[in-house]
């Protein structure tokens, strides 16, 4: 049994029905097996909660409100099977970060279940390069990346100016828009979740303000945990799977981690206002106002989905453009065309998204609205949407870690399609608050410390760097081991950073 403080609900909040959870402080948690825990269905929970964690990670999870948030999500109308949590779960806004929740046609769609950074996600590029070939030019390579990829306040490519109509096209088409303009290759699209375009995007539902923020920030990396990282393949767990992905020991890979920037934040904020009113209008009981939502089949629900899809498409485009500049930077440094360098996209996944997907529920294929808030889709081998190149091994699952340790590439499994609506974890998850991290970093020369470990870092803000010190994060290896051992994804390779640019 676990005792938590109840979720605190805004005092003057009257329009929606808000029940104070203070009276329901106790969660009944049972361990199912070494990697699975159950939060028993109680009170207004419509389904149980399932948490993927080992005993040690579970102790860490219990320190914040994330388990209460898993239970809170289980109270929402139309939720199917269970409110799920991955081992990298931590406290979010209403929905926990590291959570998965699927709703049937009677259910809801919620901006909180997607988050502010809509389609924050990651992609990984392979290459024909060996570590030795770039080792001596890392400093200059990182500087070149830093020059070519806009980071920090107000930074923007001078060669990129968008009109409103062009921006609307971008929001409708996603990564295709970028490819049509020479950013990357046609074949890149085969290796992006949903081929880089969520259907149903309607720019008419995106506010002028969000459109404006989008125009100012298209093709920019952003700050916080966003990065571009040059990595070396440091360990291989399955030779055959690694070969299919085009990865070998000592080879060089690149990760791009960013999202929909201010456009996505604005869409989220705009629709939280809409959804607070909608929840009240449709009589949906909220235990936390940030869980605000509307029925999938309502005007508000449809409008949010159409706007969210635009933001998701913006994020796909953003990563596609940055990929182009990554290829240009490598090509410039190595004085060889990027095709020759083999900088091919392995895959691109969303970490924050709501999508309509078909999953088996009680043996029947059912259309569900799956919310992944800090979680990754993980399709099994043979799934119709698993790209042709990976049909036999499953969809690549990309798990970035902190800037000092390592990241992982995994593949989806059949178990994930049975248990988690084909979902897996998404990253390390913080263990230290930003203020704690800043205190820890005080007086340290972080750049020097990283360089001593063989990692070249360029960042536009000192605070960003301090907040992102490796110690501030859970060890991603522990997180990945849980999903691997639980069978909801399979480890393929480990990546270690050589150079990083951050916002």
């Amino acid at each position, binding site marked *: 049994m676990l005792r938590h403080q109840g979720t605190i609900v805004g*005092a003057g909040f009257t329009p929606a029905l808000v029940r104070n959870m203070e009276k329901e402080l106790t969660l009944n948690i049972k361990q199912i097996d070494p990697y699975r825990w159950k939060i028993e269905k109680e009170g207004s929970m419509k389904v149980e909660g399932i948490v993927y964690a080992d005993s040690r990670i579970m102790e860490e999870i219990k320190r914040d409100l994330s388990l209460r948030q898993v239970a809170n999500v289980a109270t929402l109308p139309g939720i199917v099977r269970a409110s799920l949590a991955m081992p990298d779960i931590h406290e*979010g806004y209403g929905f926990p970060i590291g959570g998965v929740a699927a709703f049937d046609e009677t259910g809801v769609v919620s901006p909180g279940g997607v988050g502010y950074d809509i389609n924050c996600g990651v992609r990984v590029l392979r290459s024909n390069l060996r570590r030795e070939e770039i080792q001596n030019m890392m400093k200059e390579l990182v500087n070149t990346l830093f020059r070519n990829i806009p980071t*920090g*306040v107000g930074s923007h490519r001078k060669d990129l100016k968008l009109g409103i109509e062009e921006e609307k096209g971008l929001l409708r088409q996603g990564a295709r828009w970028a490819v049509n303009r020479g950013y990357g290759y046609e074949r890149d699209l085969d290796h992006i979740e949903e081929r880089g375009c969520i259907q149903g995007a309607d720019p008419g539902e995106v506010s002028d303000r969000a459109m*404006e923020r989008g125009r*100012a920030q298209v093709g920019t990396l952003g700050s*916080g945990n966003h990065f571009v990282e040059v990595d070396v393949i440091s360990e291989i767990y399955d030779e055959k799977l690694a070969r299919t992905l085009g990865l070998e020991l000592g080879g060089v890979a690149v990760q791009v981690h960013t999202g929909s920037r201010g456009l996505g934040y604005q869409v989220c904020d705009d629709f939280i206002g809409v959804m607070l009113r909608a929840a009240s209008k449709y009589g949906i009981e909220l235990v936390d106002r940030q869980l605000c939502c509307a029925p999938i089949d309502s005007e508000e629900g449809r409008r949010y989905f159409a706007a969210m899809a635009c933001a998701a498409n913006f994020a796909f485009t953003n990563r596609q453009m940055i990929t182009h500049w990554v290829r240009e930077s490598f090509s410039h440094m190595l004085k060889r065309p990027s095709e020759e360098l083999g900088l091919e996209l392995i895959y691109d996944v969303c970490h924050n998204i709501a999508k309509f997907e078909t999953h088996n529920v009680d043996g029947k294929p059912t259309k569900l609205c799956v919310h992944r808030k800090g979680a990754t889709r993980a399709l099994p081998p043979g799934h119709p949407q698993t790209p042709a190149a990976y049909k036999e091994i499953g969809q690549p699952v990309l798990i970035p870690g902190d800037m000092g340790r390592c990241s992982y590439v995994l593949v989806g499994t059949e178990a994930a399609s049975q248990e988690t609506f084909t979902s897996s974890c998404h990253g390390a998850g913080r263990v230290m608050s930003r203020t704690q991290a800043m205190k820890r970093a005080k007086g340290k020369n972080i750049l020097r410390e990283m360089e001593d470990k063989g990692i070249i870092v360029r960042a536009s*803000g000192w605070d960003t760097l301090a907040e992102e010190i490796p110690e501030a994060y859970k060890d991603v290896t522990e997180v990945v081991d849980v999903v691997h051992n639980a069978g909801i994804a399979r480890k393929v390779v480990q990546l270690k950073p050589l150079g990083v640019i951050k916002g």
Partner: protein
Amino acid sequence: MPMKESASKRYKVLEHTADLALEVYGRDLKELFGNAAFALFDVVTDLSRVEEKVERTIRLRSFDLEELLVNWLNELLYYHEVEQLLFKRFEVKGLESDNLEAVAYGESFREGRHLILTSPKAVTHHKIEVVEVPGGWRARVIIDL
């Protein structure tokens, strides 16, 4: 109406794993809202290097004080992001439970002059609190970074 108190009395940073949580104080609601905005930009940049060169008038309507506070701060973040403005002083002229009128003073970000310490994504509604306490008001806001 420039604030006279030291920065440490206007707000404090609370420990929160994923994000930045601020606890803000004010003798009345107007001061509370002004201090919340000050706190936001105080974590974004070194405000001693920011001058008052431009102003933006902001008028907002919301259905309660909590939403009003979140919308006010997000409005300022919008100007920060689109016009690269850094605000250092705020005059809250009118404030009721559902509407606000204020003027924010500051200047545009200049490379070399200003340092960006943190770039907030958005001010969230999570655990938002605006409460009357002995001697004034206290608010808590959580900022997604």
